[in-house]
């Protein structure tokens, strides 16, 4: 058995070694973020959940958390409630603090450099979202906090078997086995995982823990494990594709040219405008900047998640609101994700994780909406040469 040579592509690692590697990282003081299965019924909030009293399967929440031990690392297929976004654009963060001394104002900036950290077993839709959002974060202004965290983080994806019927990553240009936005990809195989390092950061991780990996036999995944991985990955892609298939380019063009179409203009009627979809979305990146005073003459400027689904998002100081009802606000959500962003940055602002659909108890269903738009777009293409 040869240990890993990081100049080559694919390695094999057992689950024990992966946990040992995690333990080594933690032991060295590196922050490791990974899916963790939270036993809802073990927390004090169990009192809130009748599900905890039910016989049978107990509810488990999967969340990305900073690991306290390697044993916490969850290598299952569950989708974390919130996406990985929260570790790059936190729900709230300080931008600066101020204190007023008479007419002078003292300002303290926040650090924009971050200690190296590793994300393990990220969902491919979540890492891909980071790569998509990188573009706007470096468009007319380079966001130091976002970039600082991106640079400090090595992300290892875990190939996803596709969670349920609301997953549609393949329809929006990514895949359940994509390493986009990540530095390496793990694929479950007999006895462990195949690991492909796709960036220098990913290769550095393999190199630093070379003893944990073995070089995979057969170049290009031609070995037995490689074939097994390829089959599983193809099957997962097919499952995602069965949920939704659209032509993202014609959807983009149709939305761009059908602003007033009844299909787009009346989308928000059942929507409550709560913006939970934006909170759970891995690509929604809009934030508000607020000054929060600590008494008189001092305080902190923070940014926090915002949503285009709230009336205040576009409310002018004059009182005028250009998006003054939920219909234009919901259209904006679709328009921004599937037309405005791809026209500006060449990529759809959606990675098909389906969280928005699952979280919406009013029944707004992005799969259904995209299907309807796709049909309208194809119909148009069929009539015009």
């Amino acid at each position, binding site marked *: 058995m040869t240990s890993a040579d990081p100049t080559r592509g694919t390695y094999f690692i057992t689950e024990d070694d992966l946990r040992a590697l995690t333990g080594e990282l933690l032991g060295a003081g590196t922050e490791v973020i990974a899916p963790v299965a939270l036993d809802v019924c073990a927390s004090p909030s169990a009192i809130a959940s009748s599900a905890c009293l039910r016989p049978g399967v107990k509810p488990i929440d999967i969340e990305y958390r900073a690991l306290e031990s390697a044993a916490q690392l969850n290598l299952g297929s569950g989708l974390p409630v919130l996406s990985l976004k929260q570790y790059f654009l936190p729900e709230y963060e*300080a931008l600066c*603090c101020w204190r007023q001394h008479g007419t002078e104002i003292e300002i303290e900036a926040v650090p924009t450099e971050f200690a190296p950290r590793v994300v393990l077993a990220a969902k491919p839709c979540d890492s891909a979202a980071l790569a998509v959002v990188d573009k706007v974060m470096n468009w007319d202004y380079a966001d130091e906090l976002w970039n600082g965290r991106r640079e400090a983080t090595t992300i290892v994806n875990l190939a996803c078997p596709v969670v349920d019927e609301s997953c549609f990553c393949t329809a929006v240009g990514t895949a359940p086995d994509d390493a986009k936005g990540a530095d390496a990809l793990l694929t479950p195989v007999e006895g462990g995982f195949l690991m492909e390092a796709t960036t220098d950061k990913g290769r550095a991780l393999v190199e630093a823990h070379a003893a944990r990996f073995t070089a995979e036999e057969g170049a290009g995944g031609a070995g037995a494990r490689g074939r097994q991985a390829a089959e599983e990955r193809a099957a997962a892609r097919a499952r995602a594709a069965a949920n939704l298939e659209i032509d993202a380019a014609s959807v983009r063009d149709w939305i761009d040219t059908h602003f007033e179409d009844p299909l787009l203009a009346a989308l928000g009627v059942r929507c409550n405008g709560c913006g939970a979809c934006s909170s759970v979305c891995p690509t929604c990146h809009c934030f508000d900047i607020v000054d929060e005073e*600590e008494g008189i003459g001092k305080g902190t400027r923070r940014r926090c998640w915002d949503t285009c689904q709230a009336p205040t998002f576009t409310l002018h100081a004059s009182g005028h609101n250009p998006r003054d009802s939920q219909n234009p606000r919901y259209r904006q959500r679709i328009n921004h994700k599937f037309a405005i962003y791809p026209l500006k940055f060449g990529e759809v602002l959606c990675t098909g994780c389906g969280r928005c659909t699952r979280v919406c108890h009013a029944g707004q269903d992005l799969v259904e909406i995209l299907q309807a738009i796709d049909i309208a777009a194809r119909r148009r293409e069929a009539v015009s040469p």
Partner: protein
Amino acid sequence: MNDESDRRQDGAADVAFEPRITAFVCNWCTYTGADLAGTSRLHMASNVRIIRLPCTGRIDPLFIIKAFERGADGVIVSGCHPADCHYTSGNYHARRRFAVFHDLMEFIGVDPRRMTFSWVSASEGAKWRDVVDEAVRSVRELGPYDAYRALAPVGDREI
């Protein structure tokens, strides 16, 4: 709370705990009663900062939450006795609002001894002194409201 005395209180753990108490009082009864306590030269604890409002009916429960957020260890809400309201019924409305607020805060886990509600008329300078002394005494027993301060945002820094 940005003056130097506050800062000293914040920093000096070895100094005996002096509660910070914010009092929201109505202009017509309790404020005048507190004034009377002063002009009568009654001795009382000096830990209370008074915020004068037109009526207890003007006191939003958010004022109390804000006081805790900004570092108060206790609050006092005080106004005219029933039937004495300058605006006829402001205190009756306030009474219902604060009854519900009081019970809810207790359910959330806020010690009711940190919140004093009282009726103090313009002629009750001595009662005001007693209310203040009692509030300061019970908050002193409870200690600083660190549990509320622990809710402060992460990354906050004093400059």
